[in-house]
């Protein structure tokens, strides 16, 4: 093929792109994903993306889609990069026939990008457990959902866990709780909440930022070694987690007093540290492990047919399960939208309604093959965060397994609610949004 022909093909491909599948025959449900299988955060992005793809394949293979309507999975590679994320979003959002039913950006930066766009494009954003915390206020952010819990709820849950170990909220007084955080919008999320908690319960709080990518944290951990905080919390991501856990082990900081956010608690994070990571804690809102009925179905219907996205033996890793729970809720929201609107040809706007009245209880979870996997949720017009419950899981380095180490804590809403109100109202004011009324 000569150069001119090649250019011609290339240009045609680009031009044809926005109308790519416009000639599909049957109605299909478009679920897009913004994956990152490249770049510095790829080790975390891959299991998330694999789970999404596996679950969608499972539904298509086993049930013929959602309520018999096939799902069309559109993925786009962002490399955890906001600019590529913008291109991806513009690329996929109008994918025929249904348009993108719900976008899961899997990146704080991209979520912030898309939040203002969501109401104009009328495509719901489901930033599951990340993104803008104050999007929990459904009155200001009707198109954004961040259930089952936000970073701020999680901060209150982790502090409650600490209180339980220390013997009650009252004994937090005078304790030192430090936060080691990824120096980015994501890492800064819990600061306000922790400051508010510190003020209320009288513990001493200090934040220690770590710059991206976080390969060198000696100075941070020397300070921790010197000041000997009673507990260390971590909001880390990527290589920062692995290095932090190793450094903590090196200075002999007790692992069972070191708690990561739910993005700092996967196999990737603890395995490089080996035995030293034993006892490390992290927040979570779902179980780890690949022994649930759903996993069996995925192995049977997807991997046995050679359609699996990843390695068979990595089914059930923490981030894989995180991806599963995200796509499961998305699918349930679409199902709910079909039910309330009485049509199988749902649009993104209908799916938004589906999210807003989503109720997945324990019984439904059991039906889905996820008994005791996570907790039931109920979303309402004003509360897009849902229950906000968070538990703590612990790493067993010998068995190489995560297991639940606590109950699910209810968030301290008296702390988070005013912060959410203030931040969402600031957004509303800046962007001339009139909060809607929920009745």
């Amino acid at each position, binding site marked *: 093929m000569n150069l001119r022909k090649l250019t011609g093909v290339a240009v045609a491909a680009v031009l044809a792109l926005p109308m790519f599948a416009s000639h599909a025959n049957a109605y299909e449900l478009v679920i897009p994903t913004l994956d990152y299988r490249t770049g510095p955060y790829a080790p975390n992005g891959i299991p998330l993306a694999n789970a999404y793809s596996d679950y969608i394949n499972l539904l298509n293979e086993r049930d013929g889609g959602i309520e018999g309507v096939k799902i069309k999975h559109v993925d786009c590679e962002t490399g955890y990069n906001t600019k590529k994320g913008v291109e991806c979003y513009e690329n996929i959002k109008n994918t025929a026939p249904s348009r993108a039913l719900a976008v899961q950006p899997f990146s704080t930066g991209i979520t912030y990008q898309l939040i203002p766009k969501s109401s104009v494009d009328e495509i719901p954003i489901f930033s599951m457990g990340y993104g803008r915390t104050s999007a929990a206020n459904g009155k200001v952010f009707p198109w954004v959902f961040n259930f089952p819990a936000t970073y701020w709820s999680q901060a209150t849950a982790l502090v409650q866990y600490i209180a339980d170990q220390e013997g009650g909220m009252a004994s937090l007084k005078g304790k030192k709780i430090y936060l080691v955080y990824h120096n980015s919008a994501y890492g800064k999320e819990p600061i306000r909440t922790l400051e508010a908690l510190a003020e209320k319960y009288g513990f001493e709080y200090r934040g220690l930022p770590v*710059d991206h990518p976080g*390969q*060198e944290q000696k*100075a941070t951990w*020397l300070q921790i070694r010197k000041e000997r905080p009673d507990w260390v919390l971590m909001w880390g991501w990527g290589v920062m987690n692995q*290095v932090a856990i190793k450094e903590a082990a090196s200075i002999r900081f007790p692992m069972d007093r070191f708690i990561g956010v739910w993005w700092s608690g996967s196999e990737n994070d603890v395995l*490089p540290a*080996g035995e030293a990571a034993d006892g490390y804690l992290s927040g979570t809102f779902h179980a780890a492990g690949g022994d649930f009925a759903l996993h069996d179905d995925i192995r049977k219907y997807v991997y046995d047919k050679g359609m699996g996205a990843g390695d068979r033996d990595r089914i059930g890793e923490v981030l894989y399960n995180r991806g599963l729970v995200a796509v499961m809720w998305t699918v349930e929201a679409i199902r709910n939208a079909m039910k309330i609107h009485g049509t199988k040809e749902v649009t993104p706007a209908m799916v938004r309604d589906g999210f807003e009245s989503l109720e997945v209880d324990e019984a439904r979870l059991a039906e889905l093959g996820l008994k005791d996997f996570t907790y039931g949720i109920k979303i309402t017009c004003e509360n897009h965060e849902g229950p906000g419950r968070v538990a703590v899981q612990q790493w067993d380095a010998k068995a190489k397994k995560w297991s639940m180490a606590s109950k699910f804590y209810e968030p301290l809403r008296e702390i988070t609610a005013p912060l959410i109100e203030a931040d969402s109202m600031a957004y509303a004011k800046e962007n001339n949004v009139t909060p809607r009324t929920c009745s």
Partner: protein
Amino acid sequence: MAFDLFLLEVVISGLMTGVMYALVALGFVLIFKASGVFNFAQGVLALFAALALYDFLAEDGWFFAVFGFTLPVWLAIPATALIMILLAWVIERAVLRFLVKQEEIILFMATIGLAFVLEGLGDLLFGSDVKPLDIGIPQGASDWLLDNFNLYVEKLEIVAAATAAVLVTALAIFFQKTRVGRALRAVADDHQAALSVGISLDKIWVIVWSVSGIVALVAGIMWGSKSGVQFSLSLIALKALPVLILGGFTSVPGAIVGGLIIGVGEKVAEVYVGPLVGGAIENWFAYVLALGFLLFRPQGLFGERIIERV
């Protein structure tokens, strides 16, 4: 803990970190010295070397898939070194050969292109997962120092410092005593003159890139043992840049001394000044420190004096 002891601890940690930076900076210096190329791909070379090494050692690698067994560490390291030499040869053949006599910035850009190629290739060949690299380097704090003196020093970094010392000595001997080393120095001094006395530039470039690839392997092993082998490993190149400008682009001892100064400077600043201004200052502090030195010595501490004629 006594205050002085803590300061000592910070200084030691800084020195050790500095050695780790210097390991990366060394690779830059070697190539710049011999060919005037600012090799942006040095970090990616370290990543690539670590990935290749992991491949020889692990059961989920290509080597195991093809031959059905894995190599012991003492064989895997020379095998990886061979790969790096091969890579150097390919780089010379496919890239550098065509860019002789171009301006520095063009060569610099070419190495960025090279970095992209290696990055994509590394991911395609070896996958993007975090790979724990364990070649038997002791990990964690030195218990003896910690128990007896309450002094915290990381074992891995002691090993790194020792390795760096051996490496620098070996390089010094190589440059001073061997034929090839002399030829390298001749090329570094004057390309034209070196050519005229019969030194083959192509060969020299392959050699210098090979040596630099082996230095990258050492850096890759050290950093990879610390954080697992993953894409982020390539970003350590950025931490080597202030070391380079401080020590001078052309000086091997400069890379070591520069590394030590930067290491200590940034740790002391972060620990003692950081808390006052909100932390995370070490990144820019390293550059400001280097900039401060540059204002007095524009060619870096050990750089060759720049003489300009009209």
